[in-house]
């Protein structure tokens, strides 16, 4: 187990450098004249250009620039965005909001998906199963760029059940609608996987043994079937965290939540290279750590899996 964790951490280091390198290279290729982008429409004199070039190492080659960037990154210095703000500060303001939003939608999605998935897995072909099948198909077919503004319009503005936007210090209630929208991205697949997994496990031989032991159906399902059924679902939830991150870009944009996705969205639109690379680098780390946790959780659920 210990060796597995060490090996995974080493792999994470490699993945981290690879991912930041790719993002850095993409931004480098995308912005043709960063100084012009920095000053806007005004003309730039040659002496200004020379000074700024030296300051941002723009006169050096691509690899040298990447080296300077990584050096800063490893010492906790994310540099400045093109608007002159410290990216470190922006990150520390954006992450708490996004973490709250993401946790809320993961929990909502998992609870609803597992609850409804178990019920429809037990009574396949029943009314509940059929209704959830139709609902999940609708949710699956709806892209988030449609769903987010639609939900905002219907539930936030017309019905007035939820606040239509959420600010920096948004509470749980304000984040509920965006979290539901975000969660809808993953809830359908999680529900279907739970349902199939429960249905499959109900036919397993060990369920017959559990019945022969005189256990009540509640215990057969709650103790014996559930834990076996959750193994694939947990893996899926881990993968889904990546989906939630990309979904957060749209959701935070629509609901005006100043989180990671919101900043990233703005950074991409304004061609703010340092900002995008900084935010993506942290996203990569978070994603890697979460997946490591999911893998460890997987081993805890299924004793047949041992990491050597």
């Amino acid at each position, binding site marked *: 187990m210990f060796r597995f964790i060490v090996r995974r951490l080493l792999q994470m280091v490699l993945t981290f450098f690879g991912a930041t390198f790719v993002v850095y290279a993409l931004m480098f290729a995308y912005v043709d004249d960063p100084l012009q982008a920095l000053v806007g429409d005004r003309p730039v004199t040659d002496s200004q250009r020379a000074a700024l070039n030296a300051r941002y190492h723009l006169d050096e080659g691509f690899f040298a620039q990447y080296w300077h960037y990584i050096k800063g990154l490893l010492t906790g210095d994310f540099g400045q965005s093109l608007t002159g703000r410290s990216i470190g500060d922006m990150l520390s303001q954006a992450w708490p909001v996004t973490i709250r939003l993401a946790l809320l939608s993961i929990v909502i999605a998992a609870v609803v998906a597992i609850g409804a998935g178990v019920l429809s897995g037990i009574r396949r072909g029943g009314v509940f199963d059929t209704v959830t099948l139709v609902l999940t198909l609708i949710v699956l077919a709806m892209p988030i760029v449609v769903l987010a503004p639609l939900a905002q319009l219907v539930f936030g503005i017309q019905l007035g059940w939820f606040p239509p936007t959420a600010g920096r210090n948004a509470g749980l209630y304000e984040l509920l609608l965006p979290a539901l929208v975000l969660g809808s991205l993953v809830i359908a697949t999680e529900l279907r996987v739970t349902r199939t997994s429960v249905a499959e496990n109900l036919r397993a031989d*060990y369920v*017959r*043994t559990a019945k*022969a*032991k005189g256990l009540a159906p509640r215990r057969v399902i709650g103790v*014996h079937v559930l834990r076996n059924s959750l193994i694939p679902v947990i893996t899926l939830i881990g993968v889904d965290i990546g989906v939630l991150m990309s979904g957060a870009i749209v959701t935070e944009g629509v609901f005006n939540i100043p989180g990671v996705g919101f900043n990233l969205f703005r950074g991409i639109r304004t061609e703010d290279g340092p900002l995008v690379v900084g935010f993506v680098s942290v996203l990569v780390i978070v994603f890697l750590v979460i997946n490591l946790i999911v893998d460890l959780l997987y081993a805890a659920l*299924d004793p047949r899996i041992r990491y050597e």
Partner: protein
Amino acid sequence: MNQEILLDVRDLHVEFRTRDGVARAVNGVNLRLHPGETLAVLGESGCGKSVTAQAIMGILDTPPAHITGGQVLYRGVDLLQLPERERRKVRANRIAMIFQDALSALNPVYTVGFQLAELFRVHRGTSRGEAKRRAVELLDQVRIPDARRRVNDYPHQFSGGMRQRVMIAMALALDPEVLIADEPTTALDVTVQAQIMNLLADLQRQRTMGLMLITHDMGVVADVADRIAVMYAGRVVEEAPVYDIYGRPAHAYTKALLESIPRLDHKGRQLNVIQGLPPALTDVPRGCSFHPRCAYAREICRHEEPPVYQIAPQRIASCHFVREVLGV
């Protein structure tokens, strides 16, 4: 033999209602089991022996399975009439069952200790610590070495034979009076088979438990069974004490089964096999269901279901040509 009757299955009928039609898996089975006795239920796959066992346990999946008639009397009480709550108390407490493939029959994600202790905790309300202690004791009784340590292992960490011992420990945990063993040794290799059968026989003797041994292996049966019930197409076609059946089978099917066992003194000769396949249960032949494969079959077998003949105090056979098969 003790003449008290533990388990009395009367005219049991089970059918499976599927999209492809109704499969009549069990068509009027009668079986009796006495304390301390081993009754072997013998037959090919699909003859209804496992379904009969699961009907006795009440663990058939309904749907598709439906018990359409008969009684399962345990000490005179019809289990089929009991409410589910009462029925659950019978399982494992009074009548327990072990299955063929212990790897899939044990839950892969819980330790064997948990799965054993669960019985005490659910049925007896025993405390965690005490239940765990009893689990170790049970593993010890089924002769698993180093039980104290192994109780914390998962099923996949045991060998096939050891896993079947765990299954047996689980079935015997609450001291049942009846043990149904559904092909307990089929998944094991021959040397381990003998060990498991000996263990079962020992434990049965200690407890004067009734053992219903379901198998298709005539070799396993010969050593341990007191009586044999031969099943074909959902019916018991012959029932007799073990020596009688091996010496002088009374049903054409039993005789054919015995002749299909390879024997060393017949080396080099063609092995007798029973021609054809067991009938599809959705389409059981009229008359005697064995007639299409039977060497004795005549006109009457195609039309008339053979009656059950009592040919000796403890022997019955259901064949039109009992006398001819017996050779009298």
